């Protein structure tokens, strides 16, 4: 399996104007097609890192490169990143269809031309029957699915997810985890998935990057060597899963003890 580096962060630092050092010397190479989890206590700079990668914030020191991608004027790969936030972040005044259409609409794609792509995206998240619904008519899990459909309608290369399922109940969450893995395999995405759940990171990713706070930095990089599809309950009771969870858990605790307690 030969893989290319999609994204490379070299000693990236970010200091906010109020003096907060959100990131310091963060280095990270992300391989194409991998599923990387960023795991860490709150305030360790996970969101900041994700925003920098998305091009939504500048870095203060270090640099970020995209070895394989064609790059636009802003230095980020051309229309190939999508972002899923912790909240569904939907336009409440627009139907499900219009919400998913938005990224294409912003590129000037008319409704008719976008129809096929939008319907396909909705089908992938199992919401084909809800195109004309408004967000308020949907459950929390369904809203999150709309958010994911909107992210995948542009066929992104890189999907950034910032604690996307943190606000959902356990059952919905585990269902969405499985759906996400299925889509990831089907779509050839690279995913960077921010979470503060050890078990979620071990279940989903092929690599767990543990971060610590004050200053935000990488403290451990754990590979989870298990093939996909991982098959739900079976994988959750496997030694590989237990070991990965254990290692990540320890690294996380060490990270939290080295800084001050929350």
């Amino acid at each position, binding site marked *: 399996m030969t893989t290319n580096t999609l994204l490379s962060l070299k000693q990236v630092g970010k200091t906010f104007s109020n003096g907060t050092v959100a990131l310091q010397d963060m280095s990270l190479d992300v391989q194409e097609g991998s599923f990387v989890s960023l795991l860490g206590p709150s305030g360790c700079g996970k969101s900041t890192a994700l925003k920098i990668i*998305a091009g*939504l914030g500048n870095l203060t020191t270090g640099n970020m490169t995209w070895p394989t991608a064609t790059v636009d004027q802003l230095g980020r790969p051309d229309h190939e990143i999508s972002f899923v*936030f912790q909240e569904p972040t939907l336009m409440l*005044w627009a139907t499900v269809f219009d919400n998913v259409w938005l*990224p294409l609409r*912003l590129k000037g794609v008319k409704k008719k031309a976008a129809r096929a792509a939008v319907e396909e995206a909705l089908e992938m998240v199992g919401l084909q029957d809800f195109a004309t619904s*408004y967000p308020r008519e949907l459950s929390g899990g369904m809203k999150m699915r709309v958010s994911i459909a909107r992210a995948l309608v542009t066929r992104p290369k890189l999907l950034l997810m910032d604690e996307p399922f943190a606000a959902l109940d356990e059952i919905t969450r585990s269902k969405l985890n499985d759906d996400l893995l299925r889509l990831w395999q089907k779509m050839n995405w690279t995913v960077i998935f921010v979470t503060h759940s050890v078990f979620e990171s071990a279940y989903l990713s092929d690599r767990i990057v543990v971060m610590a706070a004050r200053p935000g930095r990488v403290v451990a990089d754990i590979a989870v060597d298990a093939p996909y599809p991982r098959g739900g309950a079976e994988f959750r009771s496997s030694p590989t899963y237990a070991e990965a969870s254990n290692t990540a858990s320890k690294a996380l605790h060490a990270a939290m003890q080295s800084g001050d307690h929350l």
Partner: protein
Amino acid sequence: MTKSAPNTPEIQLDPVELRKARIARNERIGRWLLPIIVIVLTIVGWDLFCVINEVPHYVIPRPGRVLEALIEDWSLLISSLGATLVITFSALTLAIVGGVGLAILFAQSKWVEMSFFPYAIMLQVTPIIVIAPLIFIYVDSKFAGLLICAWIVAFFPILSNTTLGLKSADHNLVDMMKLYGASRWQTLRFLRLPSALPYFLGGLKIAGGLSLIGAIVAEFVAGSGGAGSGLAFRILEASYRLNIPRMFAAILLISFTGILIFMAMSFLSWLFLHKWHESAIKREI
């Protein structure tokens, strides 16, 4: 939860739900019945008061007398109301254009907002009644003068509400717009304006009533200076002639117009928001 048609004869409900259903039904009826009862009682009380105290009709006319005046002077009053309404709605239209336009301008640049918002507040807090005489000195056209006065009163709630609304767009959605390379115009069109809509409509509800008040106040000021045919002028004229029933009739007409305008604005608000905004959604539980 298959077919639970509303006319199914027997749905089992617990006492709490039964009570809720009863309360809901009573509220539905009460919403219409109570105001009607109160108005009828008020009118009866007013009539009794006049009869018992033998109040002369040129001080307080009996309700019947007011009704007579309303019917007798109908064509006069209605054409005056027409004139007032022309001012009211022209002013409201200009207030919408000006208020929303300025709000969009403010949203484009903090510097502009910081520089000019104080002026908007100044216009708002200075009573129109003290500015109006000046306006009628400087502006020749009476129509334009009336319009300016009504506009000054009506535009502020639209401006301040829309300004707030444009700023209240979800930050994550703003980020997403940026991520997908949306232009300023696209962000305004797809995100900021829809986010501001509920705020704007809230401002419109207030501005509708205020533009009527502004028009009437301006007519009072202008009316004392001579020509004019608005409702306020009719009231002034009637007061000079001690035609108290006509004054009452005109006041009644103004109040009803105000209520109608408010209801129209509320309906408009419901029309735009009922599909998605919390404020317009009936709660089931």
